[in-house]
């Protein structure tokens, strides 16, 4: 269900916790699964539950509680834009409008070509670089301007 590489990464995480606390690795296991599969389908979460010896419901609870998991399909690139206070003061509203127009979709939606999903995010702990966005959860870009957004999107295409 998951690749040997993903399983090796999950095993590495499990080893960080006491032997009787495999459940502590659920957050990283879901992250690793999401990176491999693009999003968390029910079968994927069930597999993680089985692998860690957890009830499936406990895994669904975790996957739906934390904002960065996607329990529905997303585009190839998920752009999460911070619109919280520091970013709001330094241009997030303009970036919101720009991204919506450029991608032709609103927050929580995917562009027509299926490549980009736009999401609204909360503070990413990088307010000194505001306005800030995150691409596929693991890459952060700050000091956004329309030109910079153009460059990033061009590069992702």
């Amino acid at each position, binding site marked *: 269900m998951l690749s040997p590489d993903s399983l090796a990464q999950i095993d590495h995480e499990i080893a*960080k*916790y*006491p032997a009787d*606390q495999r*459940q*502590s*690795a*659920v*957050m*990283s296991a*879901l*992250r690793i699964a999401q990176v491999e599969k693009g999003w968390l389908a029910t079968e994927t979460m069930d597999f993680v539950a089985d692998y*860690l010896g*957890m009830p499936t419901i*406990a895994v669904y*609870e*975790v996957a739906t*509680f*934390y*904002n*960065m*998991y996607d329990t529905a399909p997303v585009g190839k690139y998920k752009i999460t834009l911070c*619109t*919280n*206070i*520091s970013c*709001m*003061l*330094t241009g997030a509203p303009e970036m919101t409008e720009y991204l919506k127009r450029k991608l032709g979709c609103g927050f929580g939606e995917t562009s027509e070509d299926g490549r980009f999903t736009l999401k609204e*995010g*909360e*503070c*990413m*702990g*990088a*307010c*000194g*670089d*505001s306005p800030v966005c*995150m691409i596929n*959860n*693991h*890459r*952060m870009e*700050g000091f956004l301007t329309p030109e910079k957004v153009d460059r990033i999107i061009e590069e992702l295409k």
Partner: protein
Amino acid sequence: MVIKGGEVIFNTVHLPGSWKLSTYVANGGYSALRKILADKISAETIIAEVKKSALRGRGGAGFPTGLKWSFMPRHFQGDKYLVCNSDEGEPGTFKDRDIMLLNPHALIEGMIIAAYTMGTQRGYNYIHGEIWECYERMEAAIEEAKAAGFLGDNILGTDFSFHLFNHHGYGAYICGEETALLESLEGKKGQPRFKPPFPASFGLYGKPTTINNTETFASIPYIIREGGQKFLELGKPNNGGTKIFSVSGHVNKPGNYEVPMGMPFAELLELAGGMRNGSTFKACIPGGSSTPVVPAELMMQCTMDYDSIAKAGSALGAGSVIIMDDTVCMVKALERLSYFYFEESCGQCTPCREGTGWLYRVVHRIEHGQGRPEDLDLLNDVAFNIGGRTICALGDAAAMPVQAMLKHYRHEFEHHIEHGKCMV
């Protein structure tokens, strides 16, 4: 973004590869740990030194660190845990990120010393989900420290062992609250626990646990190396040391500034390049979004320490200084903050779950020209009924900014209600 080096934590940020073990060691790193182990310094002595330093928790509450450490049942037989709170998600706060990126070994050494002091063999560093780069940097730093014999079994050939691991969050502000963080570490939803019992008696996996913020731990090596007295003297009585202030918003040079505690606010503002394009300073949120707003005139009279900011009716919090100029509509600012708390409430307690929704909806309708004259009383009333009636402090964090905004900027809200639009 600007990073201003200070004496305690950002002392090496100007050096290339400041995050590497070799750079850290070349600048006195791990000498505090070596000294403790070589001289077999007692836990009591270390705690006394930390108490003398007047180091107060940098995660927001400002609780004296030495005192917290003394609560830990050091001689408890069985598992005990040490946890670092790097889940920095308070809007306006971005200091722990730069500590982990630029000086990760200060955090690691601080945690090792804490573990030694409290007789703990296992620790976790819980890292905010959105800063993946920090997680990778910390993973590498831990490997370096292990390879050099600073972490693992029999540290530097002694019988002291400590194992440290990183845990990566995945997007939930509430996990910054310490008991929610522990639940999350246990692989559950991050919902705060009812206290007491406090983590010192019932923490991670139900075992005694000490939890501190990243900046708190990263201050420890300096305190042991140079002495608590010297740290104290960097700042002022009851407010020891330097503090990293994250300055964002309408300034020319947003960034992290490590400066002596007690620096006049006006000086900090100047360091941050002054107001963006010479605009007029209107208001400041001095300690992150959960702390009450302070009008410019009042803020200009403050010094940057716990006591002075408290006197101005707010809190130093995590030292997250959000600067707003006179183009900012306070109704709009409050609308965004209220949305945040509504979105991030974990939903366990009714006053918080329902109250944050009410606050957001009422401010939203005022902002969108549908406010009613009775709305301001309603907001105060809802805020009052959240404060102090919830399991964790997120409820208060949502309520307090509302009350402060209405106190200082009531006329803007009234104007919005009367004219259906903004004053500014």
